[in-house]
């Protein structure tokens, strides 16, 4: 019999979608049974207490977790989120219930061998409950005691060759889309760039020196499968400079209905015969395509590389060959002044493995220097950009202003001219002026 009654949670066991309640219950049982005779380093009934405290929240309509306090591993300022239960006497198993953020491998591919090692470690030294994965991308070990933190870190680094991810005012664990590993649209190797920068900036990831958190995300193309543009202080979005590659035979095959539009992604409904005019050409945001004499033509100069036509006809169209990425900066969640998307800073940069991505690091480091100098406590990059202006960002990164930087030019004429830009400077003599302009 379960330690706590969970009549409310029990109702979440039915229905087709995988039930986290059922899963937690199976884990609770497994711990109780302890078939493999594990020497549990935290209470055996931790999952039961977790179910219990959750049930209580379902009843009360309020959380029963308190602020974290500062726990962590020696020398690191991140990777652990402290957490304590506000009903420790009722639920001693989760009285301390800190999470660890384990830095996922780029691309989130795993061998089962490695996964099993993680499970073994977490079974013995933690709750056995994880998040696969956290929103930033980490593997989340959900709940252990303070005492186990160093032990886990030691085992991770010594036995699993694995480090923690970020938290606090650090670089946060970078994340990427699957990209070139399994996607034909990838314009650069997201895994390699993600991994390279993660390794390069280990110090920034582990030791808080920033005004607040800072995130990198890597999308191989403008489809943005890791949502970088919405939630990374710096988003690296693959793109290309030359022409979309067209296989005219394949175009014809789409038009003839031999190939499924959008690779079959709309197969759940009969949308009628594929109509290249309606489905591709008319929906192209720049209207830079036309279909004539059985040939699809693209005025590539006008194309904004939105991916739509390529998505619809992947066997006929491919991104160009001169690939690289755009860098957008400043995306963040709504706290404090409202959410921000990333804003385009670098329209195009080659993603050059051969020189260890030096051009990209130059941009990153110029931004960090500025932000560390000027950013207020808990001020995200996007907020600093708003506060000091996009011009300032260009200045510190040494990037020339181009119309690509704006969706539209300013509609207020409130230009803050600088003194050195104005002929004759600003110092004037009122008495001289008054000679020509009586009071």
């Amino acid at each position, binding site marked *: 019999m379960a330690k706590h009654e969970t009549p409310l949670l029990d109702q*979440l066991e039915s229905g087709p979608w995988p039930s*986290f309640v059922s*899963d937690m219950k199976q884990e609770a049982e497994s711990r109780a049974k302890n078939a493999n005779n594990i020497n549990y380093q935290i209470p055996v009934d931790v999952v039961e207490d977790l179910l219990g405290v959750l049930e209580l929240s379902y009843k009360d309509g309020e959380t029963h977790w308190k602020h974290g306090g500062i726990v962590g591993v020696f020398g690191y300022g991140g990777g652990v989120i402290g957490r304590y239960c506000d009903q420790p006497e009722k639920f001693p198993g989760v009285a301390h219930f800190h999470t660890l953020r384990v830095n996922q491998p780029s691309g989130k591919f795993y061998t089962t061998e490695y996964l099993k090692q993680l499970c073994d470690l977490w079974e013995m030294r933690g709750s056995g409950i994880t998040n696969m994965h956290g929103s930033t991308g980490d593997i989340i070990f959900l709940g252990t005691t303070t005492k186990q933190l160093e032990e886990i870190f030691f085992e991770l680094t010594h036995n699993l060759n694995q480090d923690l991810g970020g938290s606090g005012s650090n670089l946060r664990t970078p994340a990427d889309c699957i990209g070139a590993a399994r996607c*034909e649209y990838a314009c650069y190797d997201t895994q390699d760039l993600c991994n390279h920068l993660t390794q390069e900036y280990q110090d920034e990831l582990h030791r808080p020196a920033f005004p607040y958190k800072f995130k990198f995300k890597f999308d191989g193309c403008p489809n943005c499968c890791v949502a970088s543009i919405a939630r990374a202080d710096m988003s690296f979005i693959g793109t290309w400079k030359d022409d979309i590659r067209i296989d005219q035979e394949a175009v014809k095959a789409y038009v003839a209905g031999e190939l499924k539009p959008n690779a079959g992604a709309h197969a759940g409904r009969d949308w009628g015969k594929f109509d290249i005019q309606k489905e591709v050409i008319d*929906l192209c*945001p720049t209207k830079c395509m036309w279909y004539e004499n059985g040939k699809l033509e693209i005025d590539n100069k006008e194309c904004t590389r939105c991916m739509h036509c390529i998505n619809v006809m992947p066997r006929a169209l491919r991104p160009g060959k001169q690939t690289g990425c755009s860098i957008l900066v400043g995306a963040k969640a709504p706290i404090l002044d409202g959410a921000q998307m990333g804003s385009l800073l670098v329209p195009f940069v080659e993603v050059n493995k051969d020189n260890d991505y030096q051009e990209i690091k130059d941009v990153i480091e110029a931004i960090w220097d500025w932000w560390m100098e000027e950013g207020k406590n808990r001020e995200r990059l996007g907020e600093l950009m708003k506060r000091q202006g996009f011009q300032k960002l260009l200045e510190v990164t040494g990037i020339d202003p181009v119309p690509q930087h704006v969706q539209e030019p300013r509609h207020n004429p409130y230009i803050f001219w600088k003194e050195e830009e104005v002929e004759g400077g600003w110092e004037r003599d009122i008495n001289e002026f008054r000679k020509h302009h009586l009071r």
Partner: protein
Amino acid sequence: MAFISSGYDPENPMKDRITDIGPRNYEEFYPPVIKNNKGKWLYHEVLQPGVLVHVSETGDEVYTVRVGGARLMSISLVREICEIADKHCGGYVRWTTRNNVEFMVDSKDKVQPLIDDLQGRKFAGGSYKFPVGGTGAGITNIIHTQGWIHCHTPATDASGPVKSVMDEVFEDFQNMRLPAHLRISLACCLNMCGAVHCSDIAILGYHRKPPMVDHEYLDKMCEIPLAIASCPTAAIKPKKVEVGGKTVNSVEVNQSRCMFCGNCYTMCPCLPLADKEGDGIVLMVGGKVSNRISAPKFSKVAVAFIPNEPPRWPKTAETIKKIVETYAADANKYERLGEWAERIGWERFFEKTGLEFTHHLIDDFRDPAYYTWRQTSQFKF
């Protein structure tokens, strides 16, 4: 429960210490077919809901079977995943950016046995362990956060509402009948740990009562200046308060300036907001992050408040279902929810979905609010 040392010596923490080694290198984890064909993929096809094939210029193919899952996973479940991956996939598996699990095989004949195995596994309570789906023009897994399972600031739970909503729209996880893909996300508070602000449908936990002030402890547990500075609307001021005969330093909240963001509570545990009746869900709609056709968009508030109704949040689930069905019936092929709403006009969105338009939906936050009002005589009756 005997303590077992990992080898770590608390007296000498630097001994043998290994730091800054970062994550494992991705290359170690690529299945062979991926390693061999990286960067060489030519095209892909969605063979059926949840099943993809990617074809390489080498002629190789990789078949992916994607399954949904609560991202809150026990190690028992992860071990079961490993067991399946060992059995079918040579010991490799991957997770997607939306917390689905992908099993990959390198030839077509391995696909059906894998699917059968996955679909056949159920939890004791009856739910699928590994439902196949989540591809193409349907609904995939809900990105979500901690909620009552681990966080101190939530205004709603995460896993519970997600389970309830996914049950409600489950058919669309295993079908691809929608005009475009539809992404649902949940964040249990305004911190929005996820891309909730740019989701087709966003479920957001929201407080509606200003913080209580725990005067007696505030000065002991918080830095008063930080608490004051944390408030984006400058609603918090320092105040001396009489508690049990003693005068203590504390703060005062100007309640009418509070918009319940909870930022003060993040900075100071003596300013709790959570409240059973006050807390609940805001539904936002029409966001997106892809740059396809239209630029990324923020989600817009469509329902200002739905009370928390544990354990199954019926009103939230129903309302989402209603939005999905209206969208499915009315939008054009390839049209994301937000693109649809903009094309037909928000006045029609409310008419067609039957959602009530209330004054709460009109922006009144700071200068940019103005740009969301209607500055044209163009509108639909």
